[in-house]
């Protein structure tokens, strides 16, 4: 009998310590994937100390007191284990993959690191230098530069503009005491969500979770509230000038949705028709008909406050301005006229039928359940996905598009050679400002 295609309920166990536990058992392969998540991310970075949450997580990854960083790495890797850290705006996740036969030993090591992180000055200095070197090297990635510039222009001083890694200046500013204080403050029992997928039973996972959480501080603190995002006015263009580019990385968009918006499902259906699938309007117009870009998608994100909606394309330099013109016109038409009934039906069907692929492995199912346990997603958005999508009408979809997407208030970021673009860009409709930024 095959597994059910969707998640019909989310099962979260709660320990006395306040930690939550989610388990997906699957004994097909002799490995276990752990995800130990804390609901603290880069939003908790104090102003001027961007990158602090990330630096703290990376410091913990270096291991516990009484063991050098190299010894910690050596011991983990000898077990056939792999430990990674993932920090985003809301959460910090320690991902531990390990062979079944070495689960206890690997969890013991991670537990020691979480409960008594060493944070030696020498390790911290080395880590900071490494992170700064990585930040400096990131300018080689045009897509990364473009997306960072887009977020920074769209959100300005709002926390959503901050990068997880921070800047060279902000990282250098961080001292050992700041790191220790942050860890003590935020890595507490009640903020832990312990997830396990693979060759592990529920009871065993609970026992391991208790072992991890009971050694953490019991402090309870509130997660910082994210302020509302002010709307943007006019079309703001930023060219990130890089010489000798043959292609432009283009990001055009504005504010999108909040997770709690009642019309989120309707907007998702509408966006899928517009640019969220290969058959969507954007891909067909930009790539299939004109060959202007290898990829052409629109992305609808959602968060505690309004996360971005944006289009991403990569036209050749010669086609860039025409491509921007086309995308702006398409966005306007989409907002004004909405999607057709045929597009609505196709979009809904695609979202509903493909849902089973989102949960085809224990690890994928764990991910969705952890998002609920971390309060990133309400449970209804996971378990009622199909019924909520099915219920969307054309009127709902078009009303959501019209209410949420503002084609007059957009940010346009182009990573390209500025000389090649400027003269023609100035003639595009509705442009309020054009700025040329240099790559740092």
């Amino acid at each position, binding site marked *: 009998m095959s597994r059910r295609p969707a998640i019909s309920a989310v099962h979260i166990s709660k320990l006395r310590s306040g930690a939550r536990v989610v388990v997906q058992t*699957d004994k097909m392969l002799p490995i276990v994937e752990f995800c130990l998540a804390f609901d603290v991310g880069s939003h908790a970075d104090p102003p001027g100390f961007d990158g602090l949450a990330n630096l703290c997580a990376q410091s913990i990854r270096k291991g516990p007191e009484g063991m050098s960083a*190299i010894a910690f790495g050596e011991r983990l890797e000898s077990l056939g284990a792999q430990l990674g850290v993932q920090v985003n705006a809301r959460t910090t996740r320690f991902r531990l993959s390990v062979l079944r036969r070495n689960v206890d030993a690997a969890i013991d090591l991670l537990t020691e690191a979480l409960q008594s992180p060493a944070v030696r000055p020498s390790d911290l200095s080395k880590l900071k230098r490494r992170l700064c070197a990585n930040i400096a090297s990131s300018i080689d990635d045009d897509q990364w530069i473009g997306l960072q510039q887009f977020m920074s222009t769209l959100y300005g001083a709002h926390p959503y503009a901050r990068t997880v890694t921070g800047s060279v200046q902000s990282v250098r500013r961080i001292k050992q005491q700041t790191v220790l204080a942050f860890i003590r403050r935020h890595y507490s029992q009640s903020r832990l969500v312990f997830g396990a997928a693979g060759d592990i039973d529920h009871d065993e996972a609970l026992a391991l979770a208790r072992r991890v959480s009971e050694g953490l501080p019991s402090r309870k603190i509130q997660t910082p509230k994210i302020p509302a995002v002010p709307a943007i006015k006019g079309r703001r263009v930023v060219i990130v000038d890089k010489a000798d580019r043959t292609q432009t990385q283009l990001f055009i968009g504005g504010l999108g949705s909040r997770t709690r918006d009642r019309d989120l499902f309707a907007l998702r259906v509408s966006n899928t028709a517009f640019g969220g699938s290969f058959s969507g309007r954007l891909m067909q117009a930009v790539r299939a008909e004109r060959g202007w870009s290898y990829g052409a998608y629109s992305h609808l994100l959602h968060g505690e406050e309004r996360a971005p909606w944006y289009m991403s394309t990569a*036209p050749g330099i010669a086609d860039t301005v025409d491509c921007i013109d086309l995308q702006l016109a398409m966005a306007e038409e989409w907002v004004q006229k909405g999607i057709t009934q045929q597009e609505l039906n196709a979009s809904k069907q695609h979202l509903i039928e493909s849902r089973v692929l989102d949960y085809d492995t224990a690890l994928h199912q764990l991910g969705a359940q952890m998002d609920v346990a971390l309060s990133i997603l309400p449970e209804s958005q996971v378990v009622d996905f199909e019924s909520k999508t099915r219920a969307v009408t054309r009127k709902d979809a078009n009303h959501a598009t019209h209410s949420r997407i503002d084609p007059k208030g957009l940010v346009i970021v182009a990573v390209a050679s500025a000389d090649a673009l400027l003269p023609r860009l100035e003639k595009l409709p509705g442009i309020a400002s054009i700025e040329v930024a240099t790559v740092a």
Partner: protein
Amino acid sequence: MSRTRTGRAQNARFIGTSPFGERAAVSRYTLQNGLTLLILVDRTAPVISYHSWFRVGSADEEQGKTGLAHFFEHLMFNETTNRSQGEFDSVLESVGAENNAATWTDWTMYYETFPKKALPLVVELEADRMRNLVVREKQVNSEREVVMNERRMRVEDDVEGYASERLYALAFKKHSYRWPTIGWMRDIKRYSVHDCQAFYNRFYAPNNVTVVVAGDVDEEHVVQLVNKAYGRISPATVRRPKRVIEPVQRSERRETVRLQSSSERLVLGYKSPAMHHPDNVALSVISDLLFSGSSSRLVHRLVNETELCTSAYGSVSPFEDTGLFSAWLSMRPGVAAKKAEKIVNEEFRRLQREKPSEAELEKVVNRTELAFFQSIDSISARAEQIGFYETVLRDPNHAFARVNQCRELRPETVREVASRYLNADQRTVIHVVPESRS
């Protein structure tokens, strides 16, 4: 469990089964027209993954028409005599399928992963485009622009992509691995409809493909569907060009390129044995010993201890013929690559002098085992492993054998293999220098 094969699909001949790990097995069938069908029944999720692996890649192209295998992969998503332009993708999306394709040196593969009820449709679509594709000038022109943009993204505006292209162009003098899978830009600009049609006729035939079906299926039902859809397609005379044997490299080759880059980079490529060669596994273990994990020899020395590099990684080409063992070093801004190169040379010589300890080897084997299980953690991933190993090595379950070969490797063998291959006179070096320093 008894297996009944009723023979209702008369054209399909059951060849046998082979184990896929401890809990599953792959069944092999052959159609009269030469099509190979491999089936893995896997009910861990109500999905199916359908893969079509064609034995043609960029190494089968000719000079002046490089990149045609990849270009043709793009064209395969266009109209057929039964389906209009764009219908292939829209129909698949409507049934919830995810689909894509990939081309490399020795193969081109297409796949769909989808809810199980869509199987008959997918079989029909794949058989249709294998035989009934319509190649028109409009689509050729449009896809040409797309592929040119893809090349700009992956190579011309990408430091690593450009360095990789230079590496293979310099490392191989005769063998067709010397040109990039995406093709040279001058060749991409010149493809004609005739080129594409000729390529299709030559290589897209049932006797040049392995179809892999993995997932929540009934084996007999799969055989019936595949036989019905493909059974009447005639085989073709598939003439794969004879591969030129690359002459033995006897001295180091080196090139410096100036690119827009924040720092220096170094890529070192050593000639490495083909996938079927017994040394290939040992060389993969060597790559992991040197580059896999923070405690591996070169990551520890270059990234953690000396802080010369932001990253260091290695790989071994998974090719039918002699490939490259590659080491990729990204220097920290302002640091000269020659410092890192000195350390790499030291560690290679050390490995040639002293065999690794049992403990170090066990660490690498454990990590290899973990990586292997992670690589087959979904139905789609399992289908891909089966298709790849069947196409390159004619053994769909070879991934398991490979892990066992790692487990049985002796430290002395590691030292011997390092001595055979990691020598300066067999290597090609690409040194990337930031343009502002020229």
